[in-house]
């Protein structure tokens, strides 16, 4: 009878674990950085106006919006879902903000919280239907997208609402040549990064997206995680709408119409996995920058704007294809090693 009282000894010395931080998927961030630099340099060479302070102000603001909207999408992608109603919530929030200002004569301290509350509620509706009734997030958010789009057209009749003049401060002024919106969004982005890297809530989101069954069997309340992801998504979309209104100086009902495709483009270019469980804050930042720079570059080289969507679609596809190629190459290597 064999009896061993001691635990088995390690077979080999335990290697150095100093590089244990999760970090961002290294190669990808570098690739994006190079891409951003190339775009930046290229545009700077061909354009006289590009390096002017005013352009930088406009660009940082656009980048900020594309990041914010992408974050709204990415928090849903990361738990393994999606939110097609990002833009529609934005449009509806704009209408609500306009009503608060124009019809109810509320001040900004009242109107903005109400608008953000709408974002939270709409996200909660998405989250509740998805988790309680176990319906795919695609179909739930697609349906609600149309519901909100119809509501905003019906309520607003298509014409913009006027807002108080001083409400334009955050959207229109700058600090050291950089838009306030950019500063605010960078702060949100960093907070999100902190959440995903260092808090239980963020890491539970990653775990839920990575393997929902395993997460549930580890005692993670996966339904609550998905629900909260949608609430955050709705809140961020509504916040984007508020900032947008501040930027353009009125509440235009069509505000969110162009957000959806961009939200996916920036998330995916930035390396947020469509299957969930992966997000990169650096990736989303650079993805936002690339997205804005490409759009600017297209204008700069006087590309026919009617084709803009084709470029965008091709870009998303390219990002996905590149990712898939890396995966296939990686799998090949792994199999080669173990065989």
């Amino acid at each position: 009878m064999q009896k061993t009282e001691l635990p088995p000894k390690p077979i080999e010395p335990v290697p150095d674990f100093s590089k244990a931080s999760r970090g961002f998927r290294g190669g990808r961030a570098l690739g994006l950085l190079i891409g951003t630099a190339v775009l930046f340099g290229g545009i700077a060479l061909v354009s006289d106006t590009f390096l002017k302070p005013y352009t930088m102000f406009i660009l940082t603001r656009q980048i900020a919006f594309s990041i914010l909207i992408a974050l709204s999408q990415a928090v849903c992608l990361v738990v393994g879902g999606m939110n097609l109603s990002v833009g529609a919530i934005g449009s509806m929030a704009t209408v609500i903000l306009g009503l608060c200002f124009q019809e109810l004569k509320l001040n900004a301290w009242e109107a903005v919280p109400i608008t953000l509350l709408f974002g939270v509620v709409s996200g909660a509706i998405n989250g509740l239907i998805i988790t309680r009734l176990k319906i795919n997030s695609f179909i739930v958010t697609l349906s609600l997208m149309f519901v909100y789009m119809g509501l905003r057209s019906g309520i607003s009749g298509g014409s913009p609402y006027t807002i108080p003049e001083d409400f334009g401060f955050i959207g229109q002024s700058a600090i050291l040549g950089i838009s306030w919106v950019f500063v605010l969004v960078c702060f949100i982005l960093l907070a999100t990064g902190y959440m995903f890297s260092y808090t239980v809530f963020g890491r539970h989101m990653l775990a839920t997206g990575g393997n929902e069954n395993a997460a549930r069997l580890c005692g993670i309340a996966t339904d609550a995680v998905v629900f909260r992801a949608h609430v955050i998504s709705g809140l961020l979309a509504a916040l984007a709408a508020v900032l947008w209104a501040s930027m353009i100086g009125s509440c235009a009902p069509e505000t969110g119409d162009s957000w959806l495709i961009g939200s996916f483009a920036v998330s995916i270019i930035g390396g947020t996995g469509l299957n969930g469980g992966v997000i990169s804050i650096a990736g989303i930042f650079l993805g936002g920058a690339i997205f804005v720079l490409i759009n600017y570059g297209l204008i700069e080289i006087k590309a026919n704007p009617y084709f803009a969507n084709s470029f965008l679609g091709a870009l998303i596809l390219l990002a996905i294809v590149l990712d898939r190629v890396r995966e296939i190459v990686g799998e090949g290597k792994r199999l080669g090693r173990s065989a």
Partner: protein
Amino acid sequence: MSASEQKSTTGPLALRGITKSFPGVRAVDNVSVDFYPGKIHALMGENGAGKSTVMKIITGIYQPDSGEMSFHGERLAPRSYRESLAMGIDIVHQEIQVVPEASVAENIMLDKLSLVSPGGRVNWRRLYEEASVFMQEVGLHLPPSTVVRQLSAAYKQLIQIARALAARATVILLDEPTSSLSLSESDNLFNLLDGLKQRGVTVIYVSHKIEEVYRIADSISVMRDGKLIGTRPRAELERNELVRMMIGRDLREQRIGSTKVSESKVVLKVEALSKAGKCTDISFELREGEILGFYGLIGAGRTEFARVLIGEDQADSGSVYVNGQKATIRRVSDALFRYKIGYVTENRKEEGLFLGESVLTNLTLLVWKRMRHPLTRYISRKKEEVAARKMVSELSVRARSLADLAANLSGGNQQKISIGRWLLADCDILIIDEPTVGVDVGAKEQIHQLIWNLARLERKAIILISSEMAEIIRLSSRILVFANQQIIGEVGRLDDEERSYAKVRDEIGNLLSAIH
């Protein structure tokens, strides 16, 4: 041997020296066997014995590393399922494979639609006519246009057999065909198989249900650890002998060491726990330092019970006591955080690990809440790494760094991480489900040692679910035998050394053959 050299159109399907290895495991080891026309030949063995690999080799899904097959005296070396189908060899898989939204007739004639569609237009009347011929043969008395989705598992099984017949298969392999059938449905299937046999079809029947094999098989082959243990005519094989062939083992028959159960410390008491369709009237006590083995075949209700216990499924009735207190477990977090019950899942890839996450995350995920700062919510990376590193070295996980993705580890190391996670969470009661499926021999030994150490040295109470008899006997202090979602018997006092491995094995065998 001469059979394979004869030129005839009625020769057996013969396997000679078939060997197939996968990384770290020889799944099929030098298997030679003949399957004769007009006979029902049962292929038996425990999970992982190599039965399904043999079936996949016969049907061209896998190619053997060495060895030869012949059929009707001609060499058989299918490179794909289609090629084997063309030779008249078809398989009815355990998981029912039908197109749910299509009609019965379409499912049967799926690969022959072009034959009844002159000019690309489906001639529905002809399709129904031809399909109904095969439907009659298997006893499917339904309109051929019935949509499959609404039919029961038994009907879907029959559809698959009809499809094999429509493909003019003369060899039909069935993989655990009764696993989703009721008794009377099984009876119908057996009658059908008898009919096929009369018509000269070769039926290869994979099952681990002893009762049904005795009812229909003409001869029985038993596999174990990839090797063919023997082929006998049914009439000459005693049930006890068959059980012994299936589960007997020369290696590792010894117990790993005695456990020291604290008889007075009942940490978990389950009383008449029931959940419709999952488990019925389960009652037992688990003590400190005990390894309680749950033995049974797949689908016997062990995993299903475990999921009810940890709150993943809700019990219909019954009660659970942890350390003498009545426990209310509504979700997995209750089991874990309130009662310190951990469950290491059986499918570590599907339900255990976060393959895309690091070793670090996979290990520490349950204890994050304990490591965070009360105000900033910051999870201390340092505490995390200290904990993970400790576990990695205690379990001797082979990884280059804590940042390695779980997906890149070997099966044994993945399993160690799935267990280590619950150890870090200080679980006092651990349910470990099939811990050594798909891990190599060396890692298996380490995992056995680990489980034993947990009970003996760390005084954990462990429920070990395993379908491998040798593993259960090697580790358990006591064994509960499950069948049909119930506990059908107990084999106790394994720490008493008077009883040999063979005796324990026979006790379990007797329990099982009594109900089968």
